[in-house]
């Protein structure tokens, strides 16, 4: 059965009665990651609209089903944006859906600018949600500095709808940079690229994107801001990285924007079949991880984002998701988290990685929290991911 609530009250009423397993859907852009058909679906797209936008206070509040595209357009009209660069995986997953603000918040989905502006959760300043038994709760607010009480905003962000249904989210927005430019380095090995990106991100020149695309032999560094400032900083950045480095500057803002859009949305893998993993790990450990994957003789395509902290990996269309190799490689790299994002339904069905916290105490705390907010266990999660112990 599909429920399409028109208001927060509808959501509350429905959850107060419901005892069946339930999948919460925003724009259905990640539909491909679903594993099983649940009894009920709660579709939030009718719960839509920006409820408050104050450009002078850098604040935007929107109902959960509001499309990211609608918000982006509204903000652009005032020269502002969501700084965490929300990604859109609809292309990667072959879905026709469109990401919503609630889905993005639930997944803490964050793009390349995370290295500078933080994750989606860092821009979130308030929420309203309905828990598993229909209780409406608010936390945070619409001001950007707020330490009043426990921060449930962070707890709900990235909880993938397993603690409650977000109905409204408030964001801190920022002025959109006037222009941007890329410094593109050619021919770096993975090791070298990680070092260069670390150096760039540790420089005072405001690098807001650092990605390495081995298949294109490119390492890309982004600088944004007022035109004069971008020009001067990118030249300085180039000087810091070394005079002998093989590189070029691309200062066409449209081309720059397109490349980072592609990196955010993993566009490189859209037309290449195969299972796709998203791996989060310590940036300096990323080459060790990838090297280990290559040694396991898997045909591999890789994109490094976040200076190495995020590795997108296409392990090819063979009939398994290479789960064992991913686990081994993560262990070698000192730990991290891996999520199977794209896979055929056969592979998905035969793959078991479902998140279990490594630490027993953490597992108990998480289970305790889920029991408090969803006592009947109605919210289902489709994610297939696992963590291995971090040495951090």
């Amino acid at each position, binding site marked *: 059965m599909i429920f399409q609530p028109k208001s927060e009250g509808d959501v509350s009423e429905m959850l107060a009665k419901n005892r069946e397993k339930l999948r919460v859907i925003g724009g259905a852009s990640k539909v491909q990651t679903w594993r099983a058909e649940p009894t009920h679906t709660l579709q939030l797209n009718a719960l839509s609209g920006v409820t408050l936008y*104050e*450009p*002078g*206070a*850098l*604040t935007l509040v929107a109902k959960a089903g509001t499309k990211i595209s609608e918000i982006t357009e509204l903000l652009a009209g*005032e020269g502002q944006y969501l700084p965490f660069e929300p990604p859109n995986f609809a292309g990667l997953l072959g879905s026709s859906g469109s990401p919503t603000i609630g889905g993005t918040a639930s997944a*803490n989905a964050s793009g390349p600018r*995370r290295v500078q502006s*933080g*994750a989606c*959760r860092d821009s979130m300043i308030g929420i309203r949600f309905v828990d598993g038994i229909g*209780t409406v*709760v*608010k*936390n945070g*607010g*619409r*001001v*950007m*500095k*707020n*330490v*009043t*009480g*426990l*921060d*449930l905003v*962070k*707890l709900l*962000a990235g*909880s993938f709808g397993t*603690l409650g249904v977000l109905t409204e989210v408030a964001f801190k927005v920022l*002025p959109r940079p006037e222009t941007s430019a890329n410094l593109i380095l050619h021919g770096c090995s993975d090791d070298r690229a990680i070092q260069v990106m*670390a150096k760039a*991100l*540790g*420089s005072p020149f405001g690098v807001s994107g650092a990605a390495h695309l081995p298949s294109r032999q490119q390492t890309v560094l982004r600088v944004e801001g007022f035109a004069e400032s971008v020009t*001067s900083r990118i030249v300085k950045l180039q000087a810091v990285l070394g005079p002998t480095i093989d590189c070029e500057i691309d200062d066409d803002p449209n081309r720059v924007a397109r490349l980072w859009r592609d990196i955010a949305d993993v566009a490189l893998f859209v037309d290449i079949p195969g299972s796709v993993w998203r791996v*989060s*790990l310590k940036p*300096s450990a990323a080459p060790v991880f990838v090297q280990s994957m290559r040694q396991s003789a898997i045909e591999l395509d890789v994109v490094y984002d*976040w200076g190495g*902290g*995020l590795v997108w990996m296409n392990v090819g269309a063979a009939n398994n998701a290479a789960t064992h190799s991913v686990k081994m490689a993560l262990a070698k790299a000192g*730990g991290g*988290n891996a999520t199977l994002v794209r896979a055929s339904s056969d592979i998905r069905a035969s793959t078991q990685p479902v998140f279990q916290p490594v*630490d027993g*105490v*953490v597992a108990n*705390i*998480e289970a*305790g*929290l889920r029991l*408090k*907010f969803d006592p009947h266990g109605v919210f289902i999660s489709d994610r297939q991911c*696992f*963590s291995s112990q*971090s040495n*951090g």
Partner: protein
Amino acid sequence: MQMPVPNPSVLARKDAIVANIRAALTFGSIISDAKETRAYECDAYTAYSCAPLAVALATSTAEVAAVLKICHEMHVPVVPRGSGTSLSGGALPTADCVVLGTSRMSEILEIDTANRCIRVQAGRTNLSVSTAIEPFGFFYAPDPSSQLACAIGGNVAMNSGGAHCLKYGVTTNNLLAVTLVTMTGEIVEIGGLNAESGGLDLLGIICGSEGQLGIVTEATLRILPKPEGARPILLGFATSEAAGECVAAIIRSGVLPVAIEFMDRMVIRATDEFSGAGYPDVEAMLIVEVEGSNEEIDFQLGKILAIAKAHHPETILQSRSPEESAKIWLGRKAAFGAMGRLGDYICLDGVIPVSELASVLRQIHDLTIKYDLKVGNVFHAGDGNLHPLILFDANKAGDLERAEQLGEEILRLCVAAGGCLTGEHGVGVEKRDLMHVQFNAQDLEAQMAVKDVFDPLWLLNPTKVFPLDASQTRRSVA
């Protein structure tokens, strides 16, 4: 202020509790003599004090775990304490509690410039973190006014901010991992250098939980490259409204200053006399600071100046040297000390939407007339975090109560304007009973449910954050 009656069963077992803790500490120490525990009877919120049962000063995570395990087994409340600089009574003891201090744990454990982070023990002071990484060209962004003394453990507990958080965010935006000891004495690693963990964002709920969920003994902090330079500009205005409107206009323009500080006439005069900063004779004053290379600073300040001029400033003071920059900041940095010379004061910490600045300042002024008390305003204007300072005379009967009532009205005003009770000082005991103003029963219940999971007996940092009436049933479990 109402405080629960100390648990007589705990008081009666004092000797056994102290003996057990003493036996568990190898390098740490325990203080139980009434003369010595006096030093811990309050924090920087000095309006109230209460001597604890005992004070345990731990030197390692293992010792913190051992003390917590004993206290859990013996059902003894525990008040965590960093440097004791809380302005909301976050470390105020109860008579039946053990204060557990981490100030002796001040080591730097690792500096990792490749991954841009530093791991420190919780007792490390805020400023000394930045000092340690300065040679590598980095700094730690959150910079509360008490940064010389306040500890990272306390910063994590209170989610501390500072003058520069308009651009860099507060503690929660700069925290990567913690070692947390639960009330049962279990040691847990939360977060890590991998940005995504796959599980719930426990780090996010622990940061700012005011010692309600566990005790942080180590923290991994994000460090940022030091900007090439920074420079302030001082703008004086004939009215607070004009200054407030100028703030909103600057923010809207697309320039993002690292700090926008506001001071009204009373604070300007007091700080100027105290520090000799040479501030102008105006109703309201802004200090706006931008960062970058010299050319970038010139460019940004040029933009800000053009915006400011539309709001008819009476004074424009541009710094031409590091010395002049320091002089512009001199008075602001001395503001809280300078105001202390005018008498006793209560420092509030409410937040309002920036767009409400002018209107709320006017309403605060009206309230000061109603209460016949003086209020100075000095605050981080860019993010709407107000710090009204209510002056009163502690020696005059009823003056403190009147000042507290005015404070409460101002905070209610902030919430009504769309803001909140506290932007960076925390709820503590100070604003505990005002939580009903901002949250309804369900909102509070959801927060208390989180504490139930971490601390089922409600032994950690008792009587803070949650209104006493709302937490009554839970507190009586222990």
